[in-house]
């Protein structure tokens, strides 16, 4: 029997299936050993530097829109940053609006001397620009920087498992920003007073 083109073609599906099979066996092995998790996201533990993520464009090019968000923006920060990851299509993010509005208003008023001024930045996750703009309108345009993560790639780098999530980032010239606190779900005043306010008092 000579090997013809027909033989090679007919063997292709079996070879492809064998490749997939080997991959699946390896994955299953990894699952059982605990070092392969298909739903794993790079969880940035608190205390780690800000992760690398693709540069995110602003909501629109108009001058009134806050600038977009890049990794480099964290390099030279002088004040703590509270980064909100949100989307207009998510119910808890809508429930979060009154608190964010309140926080943004109170930050605009000069702070007491012993807490560092806090800046609010936003990362808008897989959202439609017009609907995101509507959300921002309701929240009273709280963010001084806002990146649009249309594909959700930056959110994976940040280890986001579901919107809304909040990160507190402290200035750190060596690493370019360090995450000191991470919260999932809507941020409330209780959570803010319990976790974020104490951190701000430690900043010189």
């Amino acid at each position: 029997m000579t090997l013809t083109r027909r033989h090679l073609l007919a063997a292709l599906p079996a070879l492809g299936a064998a490749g997939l099979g080997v991959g699946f066996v390896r994955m299953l092995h990894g699952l059982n050993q605990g070092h392969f998790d298909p739903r794993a996201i790079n969880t940035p533990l608190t205390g780690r530097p800000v992760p690398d993520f693709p540069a995110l464009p602003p909501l629109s090019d108009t001058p009134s829109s806050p600038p977009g968000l890049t990794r480099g923006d964290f390099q030279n920060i002088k004040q703590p940053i509270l980064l909100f990851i949100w989307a207009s299509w998510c119910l808890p993010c809508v429930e979060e609006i009154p608190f964010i509005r309140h926080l943004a208003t109170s930050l605009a008023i000069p702070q007491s001397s012993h807490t560092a001024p806090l800046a609010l930045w936003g990362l808008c996750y897989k959202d439609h620009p017009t609907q995101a703009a509507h959300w921002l309108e309701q929240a009273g345009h709280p963010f001084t920087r806002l990146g649009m993560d249309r594909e959700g790639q930056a959110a994976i780098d940040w280890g986001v498992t579901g919107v809304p999530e909040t990160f507190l980032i402290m200035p750190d010239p060596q690493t370019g920003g360090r995450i000191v606190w991470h919260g999932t779900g809507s941020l409330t005043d209780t959570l803010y007073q319990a976790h974020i306010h104490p951190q701000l008092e430690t900043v010189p």
Partner: protein
Amino acid sequence: MATLATIFCPEGGHFALALACALAFMQGILPLIGLRRAESPLITLARPLALSQCLALLFAWACLIIASLGDDFSLKLIAETSAINKPWAYKIAGLWGNHEGSLLLWVTLLSLWCAGLALLPAPTTARPEALPPRLRARILALLGLVGAGFSLFCLTASNPFLRLWPVPADGMGMNPLLQDPGLAVHPPLLYSGYVGFAVPFAFAISALLEGKADALWARYMRPWVISAWALLTLGITLGSWWSYSVLGWGGYWFWDPVENAALIPWLTGTALLHSVLVVEKRSLLQGWCLLLAIATFAFSLSGTFLVRSGILNSVHAFANDPARGLFILGLLGLYGGGSLLLFAIRAPALPSPQTGFSPLSREGALLLNNILLCTLCAVVLTGTLYPPFMQLLFGRTLSVGKPFFDATTIPLTLPLLAIMGVSVALPWRQARTDKLLPRLAPALLVTAGNILPAFWLFPTPLAAFSALLALWVISAALCDLILRLRSLPVGDRKLHHLPRSLWAASLAHIGVGVTILGLCGMAGSQERLIEARPGTHTTLTGRDWELTALTAHHGPNYEAVEAHLTIRHHNAHGPILATLTPEIRLFPQQGQRTLHVAILHRPLEDLYAALGSVKEEHDPQGQSHYTAILRLHENPLASWIWLGGIIMALGSGLHLLPARRRLLRMKRQVQA
């Protein structure tokens, strides 16, 4: 009752499952030995073995159902998924909502397909087209081998009859999200489609073993492909409708690995459905058709099991048990890999086609259809497997979602729709352009006449263009029906005198067109997320939505809040169009809440409202105010998506009805 419970006790079910496994092995081995040695007693054993295996599995189900209805929490499966206060219908339907039960369902459905094959009448002079006994024995044996592996798995690694000690006083309850009539019917339908593709798979293996896949073989196989395809279509349609109307996210397809796992075999199954025709009519593409039959079943198997193994999605994590995951992969390797190996060895020896293809012919169009469908399938497969393989090979996590699938599947679907319209007008072998154009002219005119309205009505040029192609498919199918009707003799021009295969194909194509129109309409869906107090008005696409009241009520095992919405035409003073009452239910036992979406289906749009949450706020005077978060949607042509699916499935099912010729013959026999 006591005696009934004694006969149908869990141990009885366990025994019946073991018996079914043994019978499946016998069904798989004995007829094959008989065929090899030409011993007809062994060959004739295939039918009784298949029937008794089916009976044993049905007995096992009866035991499981009686135990579940009797709240027998000494069974691990029932303690983990049921509870005393669960409605009785879900005590039954809940049995297949978990791994052990769904595997037993899988095996049982396979045995039902076998029983169906076994019960078909043997060929007689009046019915020469029935399956010949030797072929049937071979198919039953191959299906028996498939069933044997999976019932062995069921018995050893995933046994639904395991006992629990000490016996808990009440079960843990079922996920409230799954307590829905749609979800009670969805798994059996989807699974019967998945499992149904085992029959064409067995036909393909039998053809490879015998070394011939001729027109007659295709003729025997075709009804089985069509019935499995119709069931899979219905299952997918129902699943998509469930996610639209129960999950409350307003979407109908999320490109989730579980959904893709059903779409992939559907795509190859559709390609198989069309390539079988080419084998039957022109004796071409045999190897390709065999490969599709094998691939469809292999994808069905992977769809049912790999998805649940935790590799793609760990909602139903059972891979924590290494024995199960490896057993499943072993079975997949045995059936999928083994048959592909057989294909690699035997397929080159199949007779190669003597005649060439004319691109402008029915078979040419069907070949193009197959190429597009398989490319589509490859794209969906790549998008589904890319994330886990990237992580395995490069340790990178990423997500592949709607943008990728939209960008890749739409450009492949549009040409598919375009050739669907042309193909119905093409004859086999060689078409003549001068005859083709007049046949297509009415459909072309209808489509061209609607160009302006389409671009006016649909929100984006892409949606309008796709809708025009869908219209093209529908009008070409209708036009073909009319032309075929006119070609009948004058006295015989009745719709039901047209061949059933023509009806089946036309209706299936119309169904595709209707679904695509629905998808295009949904591209223009409007949604708004609002925070509202009773009395708040919102305007959405020229209609006024008012939240009139928020009320609370108690259910059997939940607490609920209802939002009452009134929708008026034009503005707040316009005539009332509809009232909708979406609701949230809180199940204290599971600490889980479910959304109950309110949908008003209208012919041209769905009005859809979901209540997200309700907040209580106190004003300085100490009075409490309630605020509801509502999601309002206006979804144009939404119900067409599922209507199209039903037309596809039921229409193609017409093919299975007895032919008119045979009906006439039967009538004559009765009269004589």
